[in-house]
């Protein structure tokens, strides 16, 4: 990089940094605003007085939300789907990618590849998908949130390209020493692919945490909603929160729909924010992995 110290260059620098600061602020202000609202009391939030700093700071909204049975139930369902969905998804990804990454040809190899590609190009659409899950008895069933997403073609492609880039000599040597395919995959390939696996695991987990539409369509009663779906139902149906507020006069001073909703939004976002440093470390890696040319 050329370092010049002319007036024009300095001016360019300052304007550039300012413009970027504005862009950064535009992205973070919505979150800060909701955070401030979630800590503020009823009068301030109803009158829309809160901007970026809480007014009459209190934690009542949070203790109220954390006290809701349904919030805790939905949180647990989300955790279960993230854990189950990520483990099963990653297992299917590496098991499918391994045979396809081998140089050795076997009958049907290119057929499997084309099936994978075709499933990316065309889908039956929402209604046949729903009717299929219904006929498989995956409605109102936690497995309905986990199993349908188990084959991710993009993840398989990334894993496959990564496996291909591993030196073939290592697996050949292992094969001569008597290793079978499972040994090669789990004891040689996977330990060598940790950055790729970390990237895909994080993305899969975030995807499961953030998914809400499947929960809304597949779960018949609110008791089985994952957290994001529960939050979405709260956004659509504000009266639920108001009723709980009006029933409890001692808390009336603190709670409002806006601040309760804000607290829910923040609580649902916290797991993502905790993962964010790791996501950031790996996602650039993940994107370049995706662009490896076969």
């Amino acid at each position, binding site marked *: 990089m*050329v370092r*010049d110290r*002319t007036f024009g260059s300095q001016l360019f*620098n300052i304007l*550039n*940094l300012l413009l*970027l600061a504005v*862009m*950064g602020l535009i*992205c973070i202000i*919505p*979150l800060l*605003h909701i955070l401030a*609202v979630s800590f503020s009391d009823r009068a301030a939030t109803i009158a*829309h007085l809160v*901007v970026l700093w809480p007014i009459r700071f209190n934690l009542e909204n949070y203790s109220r939300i954390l006290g809701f049975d349904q919030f805790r139930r939905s949180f647990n369902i989300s955790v279960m789907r993230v854990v189950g969905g990520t483990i099963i998804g990653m297992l*299917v990804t590496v098991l*499918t990618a391994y*045979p*396809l990454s081998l140089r050795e040809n076997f*009958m*049907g190899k290119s057929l*499997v590849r084309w*099936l*994978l590609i075709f*499933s*990316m*190009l*065309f*889908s*039956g659409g*929402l*209604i*046949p*998908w*729903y*009717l299929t899950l*219904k006929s498989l008895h995956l409605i109102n069933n936690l497995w309905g949130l986990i*199993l*349908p997403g*188990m*084959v991710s073609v993009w993840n*398989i*492609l990334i894993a496959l390209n990564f496996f291909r880039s591993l030196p073939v000599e290592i697996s050949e040597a292992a094969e001569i020493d*008597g290793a079978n*395919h499972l040994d090669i*995959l789990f004891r040689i390939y996977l330990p060598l692919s940790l950055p790729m696996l970390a990237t895909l695991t994080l993305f899969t987990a975030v995807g499961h*945490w*953030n998914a*809400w539409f499947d929960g809304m369509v597949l779960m018949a009663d609110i008791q089985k909603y994952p957290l994001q779906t529960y*939050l*979405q139902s709260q*956004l659509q149906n504000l009266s639920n929160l108001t009723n709980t507020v009006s029933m409890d006069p001692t808390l009336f001073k603190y709670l409002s729909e*806006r601040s309760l909703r804000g607290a829910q939004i923040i609580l649902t976002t916290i797991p993502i924010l905790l*993962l*964010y440093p790791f*996501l950031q470390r790996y*996602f*650039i890696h993940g*994107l370049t992995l995706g662009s490896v040319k076969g």
Partner: protein
Amino acid sequence: MGAIQTTGQTTSKTHPRFFGWRFRRHIPLYLLLLPGLIGLVLFSFYPMYGVVIAFQNFKPLMGIAKSPWVGLYHFQRMFTLPDTWEIFRNTVLIALGKIVFGQLASLILALLLHEVTQARYKRLIQSLTYVLNFLSWVIFGGILLDILLADGLANQFISFFGLSKVPFLTSASLFPFTMIFTDIWKGFGFGAIIYLAALTGVDPNLYEAAAVDGANRWQRMLHINLPGIIPTLVLMACLSLGSVLNAGFEQILILQNPLVLSSGEIIDTFVYKVGLMNYQYSFATAVGLLKGVVGLVLISLSYYLANRFANYRIF
């Protein structure tokens, strides 16, 4: 060595035909593929077969086997409804706006970030602009519903400058623009990554040569860096062709309201409402199938073009 020879001999003895021997030798590989194939068949291909109900009058109790066939009735009905054209138009307009302005915003952010010499400042701005991408539409939509409404933060900011309030989410003429803008808001930082990666590939010698020739920072950005990432831009343009019918289902389902349906109803939300809320399974499947077929053509074309012009291969 000995082990390999003996296995070779025993297998060829018991399975004299070469084909069967090869097949058996690969059985472990087929077993590894099995879970993925089962998932693919159950959750991708069985629903593809399910599109036949678009040509039926599907009754859930009768199933696909016994429901009466009606040929192209649902497709004919679709094209006689005035709403259909409106919905396709809304979908394409919102999707195109997101593609064009979204790529532009990401490109600009990447060019500006690349000019930052302080590594820490650059990382800070990146952290701030990427974070929204990792939030679900429920979260970001919930925030938008709070800040874009009449008394929300955005309108407070606007009234601070003495301007009249903007009905971002409740005016049919503004709604598509709000969808385009908020989608870019959420995703432009993340979209910049691919351009930033391309910028690191621009030859620094070119940059220095231009500086020696007297080009200022602005000129260098426009005449060295921008042309340097044109191949990436071409690739992104080709690939985005495949999403011309995806206007953003989750975003619009959350932010939509009855006031803005004339400009804010898109194919996916229409299919959801007709199919899963009004139980017109066959008609909704027909609309979805039309979208799927057009999408298949567009995505295939986009991969073909990406391969032709940018040497891109998915496998």
